[in-house]
């Protein structure tokens, strides 16, 4: 009787050896299906390559945008450094008092560091920057006030604006200047860019799902008879699904590898004009590369997408296929 029962009572010992051998059988089937699905892909190399290329193209665009944003973020971090405030002191403030105001500002919790520029130092910088030695020497008095350059500890625009107000209130401070408008614009642009990248990534991710799903759907259709037979003799859905999931994962992995290659090629292609452009601004800028971590992320994502696409396609079909 126990042969016919789905869950016959058994001793604990035999249960354990049974489940461990079942686990080994499961692993063996995984390994077999991984290799079998790879062999099936290799059996028709052109078709497989075309599918992978379609996946790669769908992945390249969001990945490239993401890379561009990443380099923009690096640029942004540098700009944060330059988000400084300048507090101009009132003309009558002497050097001693200026020193005290500087100390007071340095002690403020919102200030990372401050630097006092005395009227004389300011004049010297001014002369150096403009090369107007003669004209300025003719002035009898130094018309420049002392100033204090403040680097805020929090570069967020709202925090900087609040800090400016507080510094303005200190006695002896004439005016606090900050120029945040362009910084904010840049931030908005970066935000726009990252949202765009996310939307594109979602859209093209769906594209990958569709490409893999369609390919797997055809594969399921061509192996319909086989699926019906194995279901007749007791294959579980998981067993039937397995080879197709591996096919999907292989397609995804192949597509991911091609996408990494395409990104590398694009990098090579653009490096010369970009560095020439940067050099003309007196800057040095190198195009961002995917790097090891980025490549690994891309490959992981593409493989998972392939697997998921296959899962959806097979599951939809298994519901339709019933053994005759």
């Amino acid at each position, binding site marked *: 009787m126990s042969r016919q029962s*789905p869950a016959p009572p058994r001793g604990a010992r035999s249960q354990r050896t049974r489940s461990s051998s079942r686990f080994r*059988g499961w692993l063996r089937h995984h390994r077999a299906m991984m290799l079998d699905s790879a062999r099936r892909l290799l059996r028709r190399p052109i078709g497989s390559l075309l599918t992978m290329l379609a996946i790669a193209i769908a992945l390249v665009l969001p990945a490239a945008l993401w890379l561009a944003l990443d380099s923009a973020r690096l640029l942004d971090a540098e700009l944060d450094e330059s988000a400084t405030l300048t507090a101009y002191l009132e003309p009558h403030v002497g050097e001693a008092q200026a020193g005290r105001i500087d100390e007071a500002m340095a002690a403020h919790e919102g200030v990372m560091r401050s630097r006092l520029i005395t009227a004389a130092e300011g004049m010297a910088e001014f002369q150096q920057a403009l090369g107007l030695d003669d004209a300025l020497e003719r002035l009898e008095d130094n018309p420049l006030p002392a100033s204090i350059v403040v680097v805020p500890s929090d570069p967020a625009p709202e925090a900087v604006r609040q800090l400016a107000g507080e510094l303005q209130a200190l006695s002896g401070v004439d005016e606090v200047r900050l120029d945040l408008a362009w910084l904010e614009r840049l931030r908005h642009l970066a935000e726009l860019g990252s949202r765009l990248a996310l939307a594109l990534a979602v859209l093209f991710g769906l594209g990958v799902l569709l490409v893999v799903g369609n390919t797997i759907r055809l594969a399921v259709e061509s192996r319909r008879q*086989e699926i019906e037979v194995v279901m007749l*003799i007791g294959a*579980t859905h998981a067993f039937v699904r397995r080879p197709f999931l591996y096919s999907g994962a292989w397609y995804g992995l192949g597509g991911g590898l091609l996408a990494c290659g395409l990104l590398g090629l694009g990098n090579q292609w653009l490096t010369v004009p970009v560095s020439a452009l940067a050099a003309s601004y007196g800057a040095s800028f190198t195009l961002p590369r995917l790097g090891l971590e980025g490549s690994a992320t891309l490959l992981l994502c593409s493989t998972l997408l392939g697997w998921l696409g296959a899962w959806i396609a097979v599951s939809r079909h298994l519901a339709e296929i019933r*053994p005759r």
Partner: protein
Amino acid sequence: MIAFEHVGKRYGGRFEALANIDFRVRRGEMVFLTGHSGAGKSSLLRLIMLLERPTRGRVLVAGHDIGRLHPSQVPFYRRQIGVVFQDHQLLLDRSIYHNVALPLEIRGVEPREVARRVRAALDKVGLLHREKALPVELSGGEQQRVGIARAVVNKPSLLLADEPTGNLDPQLSADIMALFEDFNRIGTTVMIASHDLALIARLRHRVLRLREGRLVDDEEAA
């Protein structure tokens, strides 16, 4: 082993494929199921294989009401039944060996054990020397014997066959039936749907006769 309790099966609400079927098959019995095509033989077998569920009554196999099995348990239930199909349902792109190994691979049996049992099953049906051949390289009778090897490789306690001799000449049909008798002799319960009345009459086993979905005759073994 098998018990049908007032089983009815309707398709699409109108067509009544089976009506009030009531019988028992004991463990170790060999039973023929006969009747004209359309009499309900295949429907009855499909109920036992859980390819269909009855619209009325209960089907019990080995004492279990199989109508109460959860869909996720159905594959495990099917693994305990060997089935031989009229069109043998072999996978054409795999060798004979791999076709027979399929039920064992589904169960995750060790490769060495698979090899041992596949060869034993092929030996039993007399096709050990063809294990590397593809199904298309075999004759109809040989293909059917591969189908039988695949059905018994799991050593099921219940063996079902739907018109296993449908396309074969009388001599081959007799050979196939002799194989089923061999398995029955070692304790396997065997149920064979067939309309080959002459052959059935010669074999002297219990016969269940269906007509228009009703069990009209139950002749005990002579």
